[in-house]
């Protein structure tokens, strides 16, 4: 493990509409540094390699345990949560850039509201009558179905998969992999399946499933190892059936 100074190159941007620029920093090494702890140390004394005192770097973080999904950024060109990116395992100089495909707010902070919009579009919820007690248990779910669903319920909306997806971005209306996987999850639920048709229609529209080019980039970067392409495959079969139902089914 390294006690050498750590060398960082950070892409900065002051405002959403201003031009990006790079700055370089060195900071004393510590064996258990991750990128978030490094940025925290840096903000105590933000001086560049050329000795210029600059504004502390802006980025988002909360849990620092890779579960809240807030701290994702591009690290050495790869989208990933920065709290679980251990410095000792990274090549230097370490390049930090904002998560691509999402509008930059400032420095490494981006606006990921499009994930939220996607979740609304696919109706990623179980429609219940109200949150009062119904004095009744919920439907049973077998352990195998549970195990399959549980994988998808861990998606923390970090946006890494979307950042890696060639089809997703400001240029296209594509929903992106994460909201699609949530549609898969909700369709599988014993109550959620009541709204399956609506969800499928939502992803059969523009920006839906058919925009996926099957490049598989998304699964490769997901820190929670969510089987995104499996979900997309399942949804593909579901939409095919839905299409036939729409054409020939009872009205």
């Amino acid at each position, binding site marked *: 493990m390294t006690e050498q100074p750590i060398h960082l190159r950070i892409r900065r941007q002051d405002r959403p509409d201003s031009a990006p620029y790079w700055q370089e920093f060195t900071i004393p090494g510590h064996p258990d540094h991750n990128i978030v702890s490094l940025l925290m140390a840096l903000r105590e004394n933000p001086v560049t390699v050329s000795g210029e005192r600059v504004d502390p770097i802006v980025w988002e973080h909360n849990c*620092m345990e890779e579960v809240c999904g807030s701290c994702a950024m591009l690290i050495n060109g790869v989208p990933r949560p920065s709290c679980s990116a*251990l410095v000792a395992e990274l090549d230097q100089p370490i390049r930090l850039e904002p998560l691509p495909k999402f509008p930059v707010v400032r420095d490494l902070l981006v606006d990921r509201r499009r994930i939220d919009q996607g979740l*609304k579009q696919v109706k990623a919820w179980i429609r219940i009558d109200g*949150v009062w007690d119904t004095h009744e248990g919920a439907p*049973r779910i*077998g352990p195998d179905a549970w195990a399959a669903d549980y994988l998808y319920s861990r998606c923390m909306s970090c946006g890494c998969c979307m950042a890696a997806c060639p089809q997703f971005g400001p240029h296209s209306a594509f929903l992106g992999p994460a909201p699609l996987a949530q549609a898969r999850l909700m369709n599988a639920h014993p109550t959620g399946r009541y709204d399956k048709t609506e969800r499928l229609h939502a992803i059969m529209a523009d920006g839906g499933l058919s925009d996926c080019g099957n490049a598989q980039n998304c699964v490769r970067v997901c820190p929670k190892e969510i089987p995104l392409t499996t979900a997309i495959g399942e949804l593909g079969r579901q939409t095919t059936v839905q299409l036939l139902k729409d054409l020939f089914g009872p009205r």
Partner: protein
Amino acid sequence: MSTPNVIVIGGGLGGLWATLRIADAGFPITLFSLFEVKRSHSVCAQGGINAVLDTKGQHDSIRQHIIDTIKGGEYLANQPPVKAMCEDAPGLIHTFERMGVTFSRTPEGLLDQRLFGGVKNKRTCFAGASTGQQLLYGVDQQVRRLESEGKVVKHEWWEFLSLLLDADGVCRGIVAMDLNSLEVRAFTADAVVVASGGMGQLYAPKSTTSTNSTGAAASRCYRQGAWMANAEFFQFHPTAMMGHDKNRLMSEAARGEGGRIWVPKTPGDRRPPKTIPEAERFYFLEEFFPAYGNTVARDEAARAIWTVTRQMGLGIGGDGGDRVYLDLTHLDAAFIGARLGAILEIYRKFAGVDPMTEPMEIFPAAHYGMGGLWVDFERSADGGIQPDSPRNHATNIPGLYACGECDYAYHGANRLGANSLLSASYSGRVAGESVVSYLKGLAVDRGGLAPAIPQAEVACQQGINAELMRAEGADTPYLIQKELGALMTTKVGVVRSNPELTSALGEIQVLQERLGNARLGESSTWANQSLAFARQLGDMIELAAVVAQGALARDECRGAHYKPAFHIPIPEGTFAGDPEFEAYRDRWHANNAQWLKTTIAEHTRDGPKLSYQEVDLSVYAPTEPRDYR
């Protein structure tokens, strides 16, 4: 009168539950959060949530859950709300289930339950090792649905700064800041719910909580007249993995499955742990507590680690030698992998070291603030709380409600494992119901808020920002926070003494002065995080004084608050009936007569003013001292 509207501050489990309940009743809501609500600290909880479902043939009972909760909190929690919470827990779990929460299942497809600390029955529902995340997403999805139906408006990346109080001292809205544009704006409302989470960051970085668990929002309410209660009670978890940025929780399960805690016998022994022979290791838990060994209770283990590292100087690790080893390397790899996979993964991911081959380095870490904003309740005829009473979860400021970790109810002097997800959810629901009753009872002709009030409050808050932006002192807020965390960890931590607490109060005062004269180091008027942070830090320092003052005044040992100078030990080898034991019992009762009370802190210009309130013991009276022999 137009439909009354509500503001909810906080989108963790507490805030989202309150939101759902109020929206159910048809009142419009605006929800404020520092960031997207699904990133709230509630996602961090791993272990589970308690509810008596009695699915394991153990004859578990709600009565037992109530007693475990009361005893776990060393009798300091008002008992009617505890009773009502335990009774409502099963219904709450079923509602979560209906929302689609992926609780772990038995082979029959029913909810699985597991054993948790402090309890004899399997009573804890869980969703793999990510229970908090799954519960939060359950309510987050419901709120998103309501949002798409236009019933809820979310203001994410907005920070609550202060309350709007009318001439009668009634809460009529808030002032908040857009964290990007830094715009400060007033929002009027007919009722406000604070659900802003805990204050673990007072102990940063030696805390297991998220960086947003600062307690600043609660502190702001306190400054404007809301009471803080029992702030001195702070739970320290014995086994957290040390990190530069934070301490990450290593579940109790590691010790439960056979993990052993030790330090080298020789101070400053720098040899790699695996090369230190057995005879030169100090298995101190096994020596201090022969009967329980490594599985001794959380608070005892935390204190023992403290003694060994801070007093005996035997700690290992770089940061002033305050770590100890938690060793799993002697156990069967396949067994441990299957039983503890999730936490091993965290350790591997964040330390880059495999706990199967190297002992883990751990330390006690600030984990949960038992105290918080004082809230009321109305006792019902059956000894629980009166459903739909507007008094439930009301603070002492009319129109202001509090729920979740930022309130003080349910946990007393200590918390029962897996009861805080329950209390956050339950109290959110109750606060929501209570607000609905409050709104229904509002006078029709209450009138609007005089415009001068929001105008003045906005100007005042803008003034604070301007002053911070101008300051050109020597310190930065980030350095001051580091010092606050170190001070709290050292002097207001696991073990406390009056001289140290007195000196801590002095140092807290100095930190406050230094912050007044710090420099932000940036003047950007767009997404200036240093500004928001400096503001929060001021409120944290204020809160730190309440914690320290409460701890100084409370001359006893109760739950998480431990002062050796006032410890009343059970005389060794004596039992009920022995004169010595009876003398001890008398001392225990006398101590309760003086200290079995809720600490109330009121803000004054000269610091917190303390007073004490009787605890409602109507469900299960404290007649017997705790005796673990």
